[in-house]
């Protein structure tokens, strides 16, 4: 795709996002907000997976930290939502520093399992620290406060949608810029051939740790949006099942494309949403769709679409 075409496509997408609230029914807008939040989450995972080749199996932990951070802040102090977003993201990023530092000692499956181990540790903390987190019951009744002190309320579905859409678009642009910076190119060099990178006299690990932390920040942001939107945070948002689902979303959309995982998350959730209202045995059909998708759509939805467009010129 030419840069011009990409830019046009980007502008069209923003225009569509802007128009959608007036087109969609209320419940459709609710679902769209959900899709965008998980899209942001999947995109953050792609930053690690797609641009360094490291597969994290514990990414839900940072989503969860963001959710708990913002939920606790909103419920106890009712600050404007953006303050809670910042706090959630920073909490996730801060915890990711030591985890990233330890986990990047290993590679491949071992890296995945180390991130899983840390995520389960954090899950257990959320589960057992009942005084703070409410344990397995979680924290319910998280309010959607205002945009800034004395500013407009975000309880209106449209208002919250704008906030989420803006967060996604800005994050996407920021991540894109990051991957095109010298830092991003260094990451790709590590992914393609770590030995050569190291033999040039540079240390790969700081790069890996930094990208791990940045990905956690964005995952935390997604979680911090989730808590006021759904009104609660519970240990399930940190569980390995969600980490696994995030992997599925990234692969469904297309690894290393940033925008692919956003689409992947939407497709993944929509498939479940639609199928599960038709049949309680939706897992069979979801499973079959995954199997077929992996076999027939290598590179995920976006990867396949790109190849198709290139073939057609």
């Amino acid at each position, binding site marked *: 795709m030419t840069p011009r075409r990409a830019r046009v496509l980007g502008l069209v997408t923003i225009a569509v996002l802007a128009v959608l609230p007036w087109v969609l029914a209320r419940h459709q807008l609710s679902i769209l907000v959900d899709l965008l939040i998980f899209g942001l989450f999947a995109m953050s995972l792609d930053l690690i997976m797609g641009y360094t080749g490291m597969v994290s199996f514990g990414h839900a932990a940072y989503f969860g930290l963001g959710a708990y951070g913002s939920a606790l802040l909103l419920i106890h102090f009712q600050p404007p939502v953006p303050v809670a977003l910042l706090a959630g993201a920073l909490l996730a990023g801060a915890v990711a520093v030591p985890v990233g530092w330890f986990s990047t000692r290993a590679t491949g499956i071992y890296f995945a399992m180390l991130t899983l181990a*840390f995520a389960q540790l954090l899950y257990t903390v959320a589960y057992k620290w009942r005084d703070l987190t409410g344990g397995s019951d979680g924290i319910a009744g998280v309010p959607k406060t205002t945009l800034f002190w004395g500013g407009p309320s975000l309880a209106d579905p449209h208002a919250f949608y704008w906030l989420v859409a803006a967060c996604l678009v800005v994050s996407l642009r920021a991540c894109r810029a990051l991957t095109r910076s010298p830092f991003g190119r260094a990451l790709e060099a590590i992914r393609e051939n770590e030995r050569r990178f190291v033999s040039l006299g540079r240390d790969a690990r700081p790069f890996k740790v930094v990208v791990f932390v940045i990905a956690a920040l964005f995952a935390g942001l997604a979680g911090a949006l989730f808590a006021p939107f759904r009104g609660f945070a519970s240990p399930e948002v940190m569980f390995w099942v969600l980490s696994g689902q995030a*992997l599925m979303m990234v*692969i469904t959309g297309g690894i290393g494309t940033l925008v692919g995982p956003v689409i992947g998350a939407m497709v993944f959730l929509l498939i479940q949403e639609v199928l599960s209202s038709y049949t309680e045995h939706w*897992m069979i059909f979801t499973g079959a769709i995954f*199997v077929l998708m*992996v076999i027939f759509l290598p590179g995920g939805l976006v990867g396949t679409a790109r190849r198709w467009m290139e073939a057609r010129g």
Partner: protein
Amino acid sequence: MSFLVEQLLNALALAGLLFLVSAGLSLVFGILRVVNFAHGVFYMLGAYLGFTAMAVSGQFWLSLLVVPPVVGVIGGLLERSTLRFIYRRPPIYQLLLTFGLALILEETVRVLYGPTAKPVDAPALLQGAVPILDTLYPRYRLFLVVAVGVGVRLFLARTRAGLVIRAVAQNSEMADCLGANVPRVRTLVFGAACALAGLGGVASAPMTTAYLGMGIGVIVDAFVVVVIGGLGSIGGSMAGSLIVGAAQTWGAFYLPETAMVIMYAVMGAILIFRPWGLFGEEE
């Protein structure tokens, strides 16, 4: 004293079951380079088919003999019809595919058997408890410890298949060198691993009943076992099973507040010091 013996036996029984599952997982990774997320579901399938076999024949020993090959054949067929098309892709794709398979199988079992757990009785010979020193210990668990221990020992040390598996698992390139018919070797290995998981499932059913979700539960444990031991190493799986079995049993007893997380803590600690597992090699 008798108490320590009991705790030791508990850990060994759990380790035995874990080994049956994780050995197959490790084998499939070692030879096919596939992280098989559906592996646990074959364990569950074993337990449910064991229930059916028991209901039909009333013979525990018969179902122990018949069910694993059936599970193996199902596994082999699934490998032929799906996995074989994507061996060249990065491992993450195989994970997604096997995740899809796991969903399909899990829900199919529920459609067929319903949501209620299915009881499976141990054979009359192994019911009840025997006195060990001054405590009572279930005969069935004792049987598990002895049977798995002896079985593994015999299989690995004496049979040719054991030799081949050991060789192949230690060196994945061997699979390619086997030359003539790599696709067939893959199907056989995958099927054999599934059969092993199925065996674990039949064997565990009298201890835990056959229930939905047992596959997901065990696959996470088995991943941890395999990673602790080192991917592709059968010896590692054995060591990993013992470590996880001991951690879960003794952890629950001496450090009950850590029961939820002790397995992960042990794995994390081992990986921080040995990033490729106890018996694994740097990739």
